[in-house]
């Protein structure tokens, strides 16, 4: 079961004050997701595979990957919605590829529990 939540900040001022941002930029746009695998080992393999490649713009996107039980938990933080979408989109393509590799060549052909996606719509958009 996969669950995604998106958080959008309600601080309009952040956009206006973009030029005056300090060296460490605030990362108010966030997305969290949780994907349940058949075993902790499966989730760890996926995490190990995807954690290798760093985010291309670490100052604009922060990515955290954790294994909780048999679930992969991801958390993205970005400076703006566009950057968040790009980072999450690329990541999810690779997550899908890694998961399909597991399904096709893993210990059991159906090691992944059926995905059920729940996206929390950001408020005020």
């Amino acid at each position, binding site marked *: 079961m996969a669950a995604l939540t998106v958080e959008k900040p309600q601080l309009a001022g952040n956009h206006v004050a973009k030029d005056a941002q300090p060296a460490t930029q605030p990362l108010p746009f966030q997305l969290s997701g949780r994907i349940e695998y058949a075993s902790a080992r499966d989730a760890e393999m996926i995490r190990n*595979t995807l954690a290798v490649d760093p985010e291309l713009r670490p100052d604009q996107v922060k990515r955290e990957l954790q294994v909780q039980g048999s679930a992969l938990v991801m958390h993205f933080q970005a400076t703006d919605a566009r950057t968040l979408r790009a980072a999450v989109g690329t990541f999810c393509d690779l997550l899908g590829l890694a998961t399909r590799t597991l399904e096709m*060549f893993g*210990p059991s052909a159906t090691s992944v529990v059926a995905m059920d996606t729940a996206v929390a719509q950001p408020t005020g958009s």
Partner: protein
Amino acid sequence: MFALGIEGSANKVGVGIVGEDGTILANPRHTYITPPGQGFLPRQTAIHHQEHILDLVQQAIKEAGIAPSELCCIAFTKGPGMGAPLVSCAVVARMLSQLWGIPLVGVNHCVGHIEMGRVVTGAQDPVVLYVSGGNTQVIAYSDRRYRIFGETIDMAIGNCLDRFARILHLSNDPSPGYNIEQMAKGGSKFIELPYVVKGMDVSFSGILSFIEAAAHDLLAKEEATREDLCYSLQETLFAMLVEITERAMAHCNTSDVLIVGGVGCNLRLQEMMQIMIMVGERGGKLYHIDERYCIDNGAMIAWPGMLAFKQGQVTPLEESTCTQRYRTDDVLVTWRD
């Protein structure tokens, strides 16, 4: 003991399985072909690779008739190449490495072409002309490195040909270069183009700009045909390559030449190189390979992976990143004297 290699640094994705002696057991590949007039872009190419790579892995294992437990390593292209396609292949390599409990070996794509050419032709220590859509280098081996004697200072030769094919709106199937080669056979009038050799290096971008402008003009006035233009471009570019290859041979006192890379399966290039070797009377030999091994494929990654693995070189998972820039001479060639 077998090695499985995954290649996908450009618009081809391939999976190869090789034995310890370089025998190729399976080498399936799939090419992302764009419509005429269009090149391939990183994201679309990555998506293409993601769609085909797992079927290719399965096909390779089936064709080779081996079990994953008989593999000693998973080799993948570390670079150079396009970032997103490279990472897509690396992700599958990392998963297979963990699922099957065998190590990864990161391979330099250029070294892959060289070692593939050597194992298929049996060439011992040739001067290597490596010509493809992303690279143009004249290489010779010395003291555990493949040293670059000469290279392009701007675009790769294959890129120059591909882009001219786009200007003429030629098909990208099976490859733009192949279609230029076929068209060039019908050319009879030689249009003089700039000839840009700078010492050991070559430059193609100015030639492309020149022929692009000239093409519209000459075709409009019917002073030349598309065939004439393809012919003139090929003759000019290949003459430049032959010149710097010959100079590298004199430097290295080597009489053998090996041509690798996608442009290397062009028969006219092979013919011009053969003439140079014969006229030079060095008693050397031209080694060339056909499109199965010239064009990017999985076996060209599996084989250097096997060579490195046998020297005890493996790539830890956390170091299995890809890099768009990775020079041929960065690699320490541990498997040669």
